[in-house]
């Protein structure tokens, strides 16, 4: 949960960059004939909102209204005293509060000439909210849009890349400390909570997996400012199969080069994964850091998709054993034309 440091630092992200992000979305809206776009966010899925505004949605839901021109407005069910904090810690200057989004959207559009509204990432909007908005704005055409904001986030800017490097260093140190020999389940989580939230992380998801032969995988997905990194490590070397999945991860990371197909990561890992016990099912995944808040679970992986220069994401090898045990290894890298830049993992 978002219980860590939330800051708005112009030295990290310039006013120019904040303005450019909204302007790029407005350009994409124009290309699709959209007069006003709406971005929905809730506590567990608010990165598009944060990317455009630096808003931290730590409770409840919200909708960001983006007109074809001019400033954005945040539509919220949260009270004025929370709006004041949001105003002070974000780039948003316009807020509108009320009991439901249908009324808030209708009020926002009041006085505007009828046109087309677009729901960004429409498939993931709560159906009730989408239906209510459509009913509340007769005369407006409603268009289901794809992941317009996420697409902007797929290749981080220079400023975001620096933040990812900082995040990777902090996470890498924390993961190394947490997985020392003799650590316990409680001490591992205690260590990463203290180190990561104490190091400035906003959000944090530790995870443990285990197998019937007693092997534990410990992973941490964390958000630093608005960017995500992920590392998962197998503890100990007592069994033969951990070496196989570590080798598979190394091979998959080496294949993560600009221009490579995502499917080529799995192909590179396949020889090592052939050494897994019978019945084990392995999945090699690439999750762009823009999708790490949901572990990429809302995006079907396309093996034919091509990695771009500068793209950052987690390479993972996840194994499900026939008896119900699970294991995972993962590190976050930045794709280049040559060897990928390790943001976690190789920094040890």
């Amino acid at each position, binding site marked *: 949960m978002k*219980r860590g440091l939330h800051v708005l630092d112009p030295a990290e992200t310039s006013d120019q960059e904040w303005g450019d992000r909204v302007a790029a979305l407005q350009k994409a809206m124009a290309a699709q004939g959209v007069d006003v776009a709406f971005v929905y966010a809730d506590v567990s899925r608010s990165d598009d909102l944060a990317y455009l505004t630096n808003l931290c949605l730590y409770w409840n839901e919200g909708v960001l209204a983006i007109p074809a021109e001019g400033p954005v407005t945040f539509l919220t069910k949260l009270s004025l005293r929370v709006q004041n904090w949001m105003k002070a810690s974000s780039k948003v200057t316009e807020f509108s509060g009320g009991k439901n989004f249908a009324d808030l959207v209708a009020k926002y559009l009041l006085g505007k000439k009828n046109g087309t509204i677009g729901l960004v990432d429409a498939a993931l909007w709560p159906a009730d909210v989408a239906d209510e908005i459509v009913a509340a704005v007769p005369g407006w055409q409603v268009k289901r849009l794809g992941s317009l904001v996420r697409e902007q986030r797929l290749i981080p800017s220079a400023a975001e890349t620096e933040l990812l490097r900082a995040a990777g260093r902090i996470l890498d140190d924390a993961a190394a400390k947490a997985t020392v020999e003799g650590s316990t389940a409680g001490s591992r989580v205690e260590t990463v909570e203290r180190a990561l939230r104490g190091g400035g992380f906003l959000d944090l998801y530790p995870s443990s997996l285990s197998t019937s032969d007693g092997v534990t995988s410990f992973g941490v997905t964390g958000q630093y400012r608005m960017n995500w990194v992920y590392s998962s490590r197998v503890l100990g070397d007592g069994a033969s199969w951990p070496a196989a999945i570590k080798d598979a991860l190394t091979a998959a990371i080496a294949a993560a080069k600009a221009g490579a197909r995502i499917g080529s990561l799995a192909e590179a890992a396949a020889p090592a994964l052939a050494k897994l016990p019978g019945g084990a099912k392995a999945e090699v995944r690439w999750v762009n850091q823009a999708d790490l808040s949901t572990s990429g679970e809302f995006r079907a992986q396309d093996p034919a998709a091509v990695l771009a220069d500068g793209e950052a994401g987690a390479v993972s090898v996840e194994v499900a054993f026939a008896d119900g045990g699970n294991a995972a290894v993962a590190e976050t890298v930045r794709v280049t034309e040559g060897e990928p830049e390790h943001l976690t993992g190789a920094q040890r």
Partner: protein
Amino acid sequence: MTIDHAPAPAGAGLSPEDLAELQLRHRKIRDAMAEQGLDVVLAYGPAWRRENIRYFTDVTPAGSAALVVFPAEGDAVAFSTRPSDLAAFTAQGWVGEARRLDPANPAELGVVLKELAPRRIGIAHHELVPLVLMETIRAAAPGAEVGSATKLLDTARLVKSEWELARMRRSAVVCAAGWEAFVDVLEPGLPEYRIVAEVEARLKNLGAEDNFMLIASGRDEVRGMTPPGDRLLEAGDMVRTELTPKMDGYWLQICRSAVVGKADDGQRKSFDLFNEAVEAGISVVRPGITAHEVAVAENDVFRKYGYGEYCSSNYTRVRGHGHGLHLDETPIIEGNHTVLPENSVFIIHPNTYTPLAGYHVLGDPVRVTADGCEVLITTERKLFETGDVA
């Protein structure tokens, strides 16, 4: 990737206590389903609202979204977007079968619903189900009436069993430890976010699965609470927190404020006001009381001293809320006439701003007993000052 697990009957291998709890829940839900003529209850849980998934499975999934399909007859089927959750569901044994939920292609959900061929479906958290899943549900059950079952599940969860109360008492112990960690770390020059880091570390070491925590530091300029920032503590600051660890699925909250150094007169007067309001709220609790009546008791204290406007919508109106598998269940607020039955659990917290010392936070969780209430935490209710030990 799909993991195939041979379906096993729900409840196989459970301890007698767990099995009794499972059967109690199934009976409660099925009685309500029969009353409402529902063939299927479908519980949906995005990552921030998993309480109903936990209610049916005794598992909090790690996946970004999860579902439980609970038919009027037969076993429940659990779904998650994360493969490793599937083994966790079946290992816990509260559901017989677990399947992958792929939001890009939720075909497996469609298969299960088609087999059930329901005429009436109630969806818990209907209001949060994404378009992509709602369209799958409607396509798999054409002609079925689809409505909300959010209230049905909320009502079922309101009264806690002894099995649940035992878990909530463990949360209460961890609440106290979290508050001790909070007070222990306070000193001038410490950034707010480092306080949270220390508290989270202590709670997680004790086994807390999660923690909802808000904080604010400063003096009478503080109007509300938020996630932590990089503000550095100063001598004389009041540092406030709502601290809500989750143990074994159950959330419980403690609300306290502490002063860095010694409290001034305004801070002491503020504490006295809020403490009297908490006492007033506690004093009226008994089976059959409504949330409205508890809120009125608290607000009357503010009104008596001329601070009534700070309980209005310009400030903070909520005077507490229910607890359980969700941290923020029935709101304790004037106008909410929900009856609070025996063995419901909620926190009484008249948290709001006043000019006395800024936003003040104070509250205790209570269980409604046959003749009053039981305060579930042992932490002393006082205005803590640096150096105090809880």
